[in-house]
């Protein structure tokens, strides 16, 4: 029996939220962030991944004035206040886009694909959007 199959408040599962889409072009980035902020209240083990175009979600200097949409990039800074501290970015995704960790609005752990795949394989629930 796995630990999370026991009843009781001590059940802790590892939840991973995987972001592969750019912000603004679609709403998935924003609505996934809304899930993560709620999830943080559940005392589970939460991690957030940014890979592929998902890395643009936390690109610095977003200015949405001229497209008339809400700039929600600062909300990622709140993840730390919500005790969401496991934030992973795939190195290969940054490289392909000519970006580095310095371009990102929050401190993250940059991992290569192989290391990231190890962490993905340790999750209990993976939610992607």
């Amino acid at each position, binding site marked *: 029996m796995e630990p999370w199959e026991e009843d009781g408040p001590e059940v802790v599962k590892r939840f991973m939220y995987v972001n592969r889409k750019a912000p603004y072009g679609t709403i998935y980035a924003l609505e996934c962030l809304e899930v993560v902020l709620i999830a943080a209240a559940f005392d589970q083990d939460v991690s957030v991944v940014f890979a592929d175009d998902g890395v643009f979600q936390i690109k610095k200097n977003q200015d949405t004035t001229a497209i008339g949409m809400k700039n929600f990039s600062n909300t990622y800074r709140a993840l730390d206040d919500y005790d969401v501290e496991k934030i992973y970015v795939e190195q290969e995704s940054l490289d392909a886009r000519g970006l580095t960790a310095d371009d990102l609005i929050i401190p993250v752990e940059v991992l290569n694909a192989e290391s990231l795949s190890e962490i993905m*394989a340790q*999750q209990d629930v993976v939610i*992607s959007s």
Partner: protein
Amino acid sequence: MTTMLHLVNKSPFERNNLDSCLRLAKSGSAVLLLEDGVFAAMNNAAYADAVKGRMGDLKFYVLGPDVSARGLDDTPLIDGINVVDYGGFVDLVAEHDVAQSWL
């Protein structure tokens, strides 16, 4: 270590979902191709080599109902890819600890 089932529902010709899945899926995982993802199972298509390159360390499945819908019952699929129906999809989900959708 948990065992993982990766779900890919997008065409490899149109999007990068399968590329990312193949880059990040650990050896020993299973991959189920469904919806427009079934095009990755076509043996004579340009994408076949990418799948064949991982046949040694990943197990590939394809959803038969989506293959038939797209008229591919007459088209050769890559050798060694297992065709399953929705019941088989359910079994795969049950047999692996986690299902990860590559959306």
